[in-house]
């Protein structure tokens, strides 16, 4: 049995001082209902994807489901750091395939700006293994910086190539009204930005944002009756890797991403060359270059070539992150996975407006949680 996506919604990402997290969640949920033509009574259950430590409100699904009018149906949270709503989608599809529910809603919602700077800095200090790593002051950018340094050493990747990823994704973000930043940047500006964790600079890092996105999925026959253009989940890979980076053999590749994409390609019976678009997890510019390699768009060590040659621009041979990626769109961690799925669906329906990739028939999303502790790779088709 196939599972189809029949409704999508995407809120505005950015600093949302105007809304609570449940109000943020309402925006894409309502939009997804309208998009599908369903009413909320048709939805069997909700799964909420979010990273709970950012919220003042404890136990987020309680308040979100109440605000969406989705009581008394089942609801709960999935947590996989930055991949929490991809985990939620994985869950929802499993329920549908098991025949427990016919239609489910996945809501990724995150409010990151209600914490004070000291609270954010305290959280930042506990992103790695707290027993053996955080005691030396590791940070989220610091981990990807260690990956970047190693990738540079092993393959000759340069800071300029990383900066080019930022320039591209900002150029793409210009055409996404839901993006946090709709402003182009120059290579000079990216390269000249202040150091955060060497070799990564401010413009190598995505922005913390508030935001929410929603995806409604349905069992095959229901999907066909609900929608004229259901989008099918052809492959869904999911994998994990050690919390501690000390236990990773190589520091130039995210092992969970390699494994999850292998699963997704096998299920979908397609190869990387068949893709028309990939939305990848560019929490840092180096992460996009590593993603090119991990999902097979480039050979290992040759990811930087794709950006050097401009192949991953919207009009290039293999467009990547045409919605601006995490870099320009902003990264409300729990909403990012659902946001990628929304973009995949828009592109496959041909509804992406100025950022439409011509002839997009096969799209991949690559959503990494943490520093690759979790990874979900999905392949979608019309």
């Amino acid at each position, binding site marked *: 049995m196939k599972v189809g996506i029949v409704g999508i919604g995407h809120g505005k990402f950015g600093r949302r001082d105007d809304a609570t997290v449940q109000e943020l969640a309402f925006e894409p949920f309502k939009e997804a209902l309208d998009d599908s033509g369903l009413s909320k009574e048709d939805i069997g259950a909700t799964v909420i994807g979010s990273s709970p430590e950012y919220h003042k409100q404890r136990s987020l699904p309680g308040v979100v489901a109440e605000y969406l009018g989705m009581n008394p149906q089942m609801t709960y949270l999935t947590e996989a750091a930055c991949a929490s709503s991809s985990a939620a989608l994985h869950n929802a599809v499993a329920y549908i395939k098991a025949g427990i529910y016919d239609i489910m809603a996945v809501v990724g919602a995150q409010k990151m700006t209600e914490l004070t700077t000291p609270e954010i800095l305290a959280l930042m200090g*506990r992103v790695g293994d707290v027993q053996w790593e955080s*005691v030396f002051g590791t940070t989220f950018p610091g981990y990807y910086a260690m990956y970047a340094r190693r990738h540079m050493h092993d393959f000759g990747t340069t800071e300029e190539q990383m900066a080019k990823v930022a320039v591209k994704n900002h150029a793409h973000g210009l055409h996404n009204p839901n993006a946090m930043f709709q402003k182009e940047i120059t290579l000079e500006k990216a390269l000249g930005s202040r150091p*955060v964790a060497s070799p990564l600079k401010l413009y190598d890092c995505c922005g913390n944002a508030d935001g929410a996105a929603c995806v409604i999925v349905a069992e095959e026959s229901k999907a066909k009756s609900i929608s004229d253009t259901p989008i099918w989940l052809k492959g869904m890979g999911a994998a994990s890797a050690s919390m501690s980076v000390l236990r990773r053999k190589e520091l130039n590749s995210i092992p969970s991403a390699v494994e999850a994409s292998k699963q997704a390609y096998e299920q979908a019976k397609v190869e990387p060359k068949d893709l028309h678009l990939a939305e990848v997890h560019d929490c840092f510019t180096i992460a996009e270059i590593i993603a090119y390699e991990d999902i097979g768009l480039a050979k290992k060590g040759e990811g930087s070539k794709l950006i050097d040659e401009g192949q991953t621009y919207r009009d290039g041979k293999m467009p990547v992150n045409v919605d601006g990626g995490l870099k320009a769109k902003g990264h409300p961690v729990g909403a990012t996975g659902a946001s990628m799925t929304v973009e995949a669906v828009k592109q496959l329906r041909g509804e992406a407006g100025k950022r439409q990739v011509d002839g997009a028939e096969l799209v991949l999303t690559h959503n990494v949680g943490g520093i690759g502790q979790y990874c979900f790779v999905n392949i979608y088709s019309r």
Partner: protein
Amino acid sequence: MTLELGKVSFVTATKTKEYLDYLEKGKLAGTKCKSCGALHFPPRADCDQCMSSDVEWMDMESKGKIVTYTTIHVGPTGFEDVVPYTICMVELEGGGRLLGWLDEAKEEDISVGQDVSVVLKELEGDRVIYAIRL
């Protein structure tokens, strides 16, 4: 008074607490699984290879090579007063990896693959860090 590892610590209750006694004697210690022989560093109380919990302590080498490194300019809570600091990942001779702070050298002086030694250096407040020296 037992030493604590790192500038800030988060975990005190652990089955590997004896590690701190070794640190106090100036030693890096790992655990070796008595059942399958797997070496664990950082130490583990339970072997994830064969699932045995029968492990013994063993001394680790203090020399190794740099695997990767970064200089942190925006530090988390408790580290604001020491930025910028350079974190090195070191692979010890004979196995095991750790993170530590580059000491008595600058980021410009180091590279991936370089030989270094790990020195236990005490900080204020009965704390000890791994100082990475050329």
